[in-house]
């Protein structure tokens, strides 16, 4: 009995030490959302004042350099995926805000007025996992305070597992040079120094139109924006919101919901709205593969229009 317990204990110690080693050793996570780690590093390294863009994948092709040139701010495009949840995103950037910074927020319509998608955002475990990776200490504390010890253990182990498969991939393919990179494995190939995508989205027809089953908005889903605005004000940071681009056809088909959303935002928002939804309605030819992703032509127009809108307020 004593022998069995001793050996079990030794194994437990060995595996715990291995888990700690894997967790603290630098390494990549082969998952799209791991780019959050690289984006956090980018934001930390930016000089201030900084213009921070928060949004879904519709923002990924933004031409940040034009904003840098125009406003003499450094620009951090933190956007990655609409399914991540804007509330959590804003929580993550709070520690990195400095006086004079500007936060520009957009939310794709699916995240605003598609009930199923909103539910998906709130329940998506993958997002939780990679937000955890953005600030592990803070999240771990939260888990411990709530007494969710098993969930914390599961989170750490699942992230460690992803890292271990990445080590294996790099070792087997001889990619030893990048063995101890961090975040997303190909981040520097896929994103530039401002966090914009280096390549435009592939053109695909018909456009993927998932995430367009709209209904009337619920203001509960947007109160956090006002809360963030309050926080930003206290830090002498300005916050703006703009309505994201959308194809004209889909806009017409969902006009009543989008208009209701706009009216609600106008009524409740304690921060400036840069545009009306109709300002960013474009023909389908301006879109790449989904109703949210602009192609190069569309992006040129959106970036220029957004600069004009910001010029009026900054």
């Amino acid at each position, binding site marked *: 009995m004593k022998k069995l317990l001793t050996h079990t204990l030794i194994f437990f110690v*060995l*595996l715990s030490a*291995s888990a700690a080693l894997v967790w603290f050793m630098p390494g990549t996570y*082969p*998952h*799209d959302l791991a780019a959050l780690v690289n984006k956090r590093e980018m934001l930390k390294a930016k000089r201030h004042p900084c213009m921070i863009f928060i949004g879904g994948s519709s923002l990924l092709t933004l031409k940040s350099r034009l904003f840098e040139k125009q406003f003499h701010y450094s620009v951090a495009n933190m956007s990655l995926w609409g399914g991540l949840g804007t509330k959590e995103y804003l929580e993550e950037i709070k520690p990195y805000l400095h006086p004079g910074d500007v936060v520009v927020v957009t939310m794709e319509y699916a995240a605003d007025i598609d009930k199923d998608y909103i539910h998906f955002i709130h329940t998506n475990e993958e997002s939780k996992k990679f937000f955890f990776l953005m600030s592990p200490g803070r999240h771990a504390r939260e888990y411990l305070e709530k007494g969710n010890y098993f969930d914390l253990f599961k989170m750490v*182990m699942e992230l460690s*597992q992803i890292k271990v498969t990445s080590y294996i*991939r790099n070792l087997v393919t001889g990619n030893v040079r990048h063995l101890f990179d961090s975040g997303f494995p190909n981040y520097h190939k896929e994103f530039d120094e401002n966090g914009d995508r280096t390549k435009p989205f592939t053109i695909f027809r018909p456009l993927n139109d998932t995430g367009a089953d709209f209904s009337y908005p619920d203001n509960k889903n947007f109160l956090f924006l006002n809360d963030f605005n309050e926080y930003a004000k206290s830090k002498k940071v300005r916050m703006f919101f703009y309505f994201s681009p959308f194809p004209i056809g889909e806009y017409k088909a969902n006009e009543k919901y989008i208009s209701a959303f706009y009216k609600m935002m106008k009524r409740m928002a304690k921060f400036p709205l840069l545009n009306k939804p109709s300002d960013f309605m474009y023909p389908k030819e301006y879109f790449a593969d989904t109703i949210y992703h602009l192609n190069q032509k569309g992006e040129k127009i959106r970036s220029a229009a957004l600069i004009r809108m910001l010029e009026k307020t900054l």
Partner: protein
Amino acid sequence: MLFNSFEFLIFFLIVLVIYFLLPHRLRWIWLLVSSFFFFGYSYYQYSDPVHFPYPNNVYWYMFNAFAVISTIVVNYYCAIFIEKSKSTNSRYSKIILILGIAYPLLLLFLFKYLNFFNQTIYYIADFLNLKYPEHLLRLIIPLGISYYTFHVISYLVDVYKGVQKPERHFGIFSLYILFFPKVIAGPIERAHRLIPQFHEKKTFDYEQIKNGILLFAWGLYKKAVIADRAAIVVNEVFGNPHGYPGIYLIIAQLCFIFQVYCDFSGYSDMAIGLGQIMGFKLSDNFRRPYLSPSIAELWRRWHITMISFFRDYVYIPMGGNRVAKWRWQYNIFMTFILSGLWHGANWTFITWAGLNGLQMLISYWTRKIRKTFIGLAGLAKTPRFHKIIKIVITFSTFWFSAIFFRANSMSDAFYIIGHLFTGLGGVIRTAFTFNYDLLKQYLVIPNKTTFLGFSKPGFLPEMITLALGILVLAIIEIVQENSEEHLRDRIARKPWYVKWSLYYCLMFALVFLGMYTNQQFIYFRF
């Protein structure tokens, strides 16, 4: 309750500690209570409580409990009556035997095959434009019914033949049926092997417990590192075979072949390991079937306890090989068809089993031609090489027939077979010309955010891990195949640092490479 779940770990630790603390005379009660709990809780999870919440499910719980308890009671008394009537030379023993066998079989047919007949009637009615309320007769199959039916049949037949004494202790007999490591998916234990073990006093034995843990860990490795990882590819491609070119159909079928083996043999290893930790010896269920040089040999190494059940209680009573040649071939074929039907009343299983039976017969019919060819090709002079060729051919034919086993329908199976080589020429041509842009055209699945079920960046690391997992399995099985001794006994004799390094590697793989996604064991549904 899945063996690879955290809740099972907690359950088993509690069972184990109390089991060893109790005196021998009380242990059977504890094991029976634990087995009942395990069985009931597993059924609760298995019957999809999310989609069929209480109270919609309560009737099924009652049916499930009724099915297993009534089977135990009926067969307990039947065995005693058989012995009594045999001792008085009464002619009723055979009638009691038939009744005892008929009862669980009736339940099995009712629950397992009524859905099939119901669906068939629905299809016919639909074809004839008639309305048929198919939904009124949808039954949830009681968990483990196929397995405990086989247990009681073998028990009754053995009592009838005088091979086995009827068990007078009702609790021990119930435990024989419900013993939790094997109740859901086997191994199918013969009464004369298992029942005496419940009467024996078990002592705490470090070596035995260590070996049991190692076997459990190895089974978990097969399930969590290989089977559940392969399942992601398999579920994605077989869920929509029309969306994938031939190369992916081939890859998915290859993944399935390893998934099904690692899932089931992993489960069996875990069950045997659990038994061993508590001091029970359960029967081996798999003996490296993919290293078999013939299809007949493969079936002697695959799901051994079920195949031996079919041999002893179906094939031999039909006459076995002691009959005319045509009748013997008929017996083989029918035994396979019945084993296919056991997997489920579905044409895919029947075709899969039929193909395997046919392969056995073809190998018999062509034995002379093959012998001549082997002589002409000079393969007899290189027996090792010859064996490798035989293993590859056996594996390939099994790989092919298993398309029917996994396909969701017969039409899907035929689609997959018809499209296995679609686009393959292009892939091979471009791969050899190193024209990767062109190769991409054949390999990229347009407008999909995932790749074979994995996220795009996660695909390569996961597939490399899967391939390495299979490679480790293959190396271990080949080493074991060429040795009489158990590999774990050989490892136990190595210096402590070698031994501990190997154990550590296994544990590291389980912790950092295992997928714990609650993927059910494939054979639970049979």
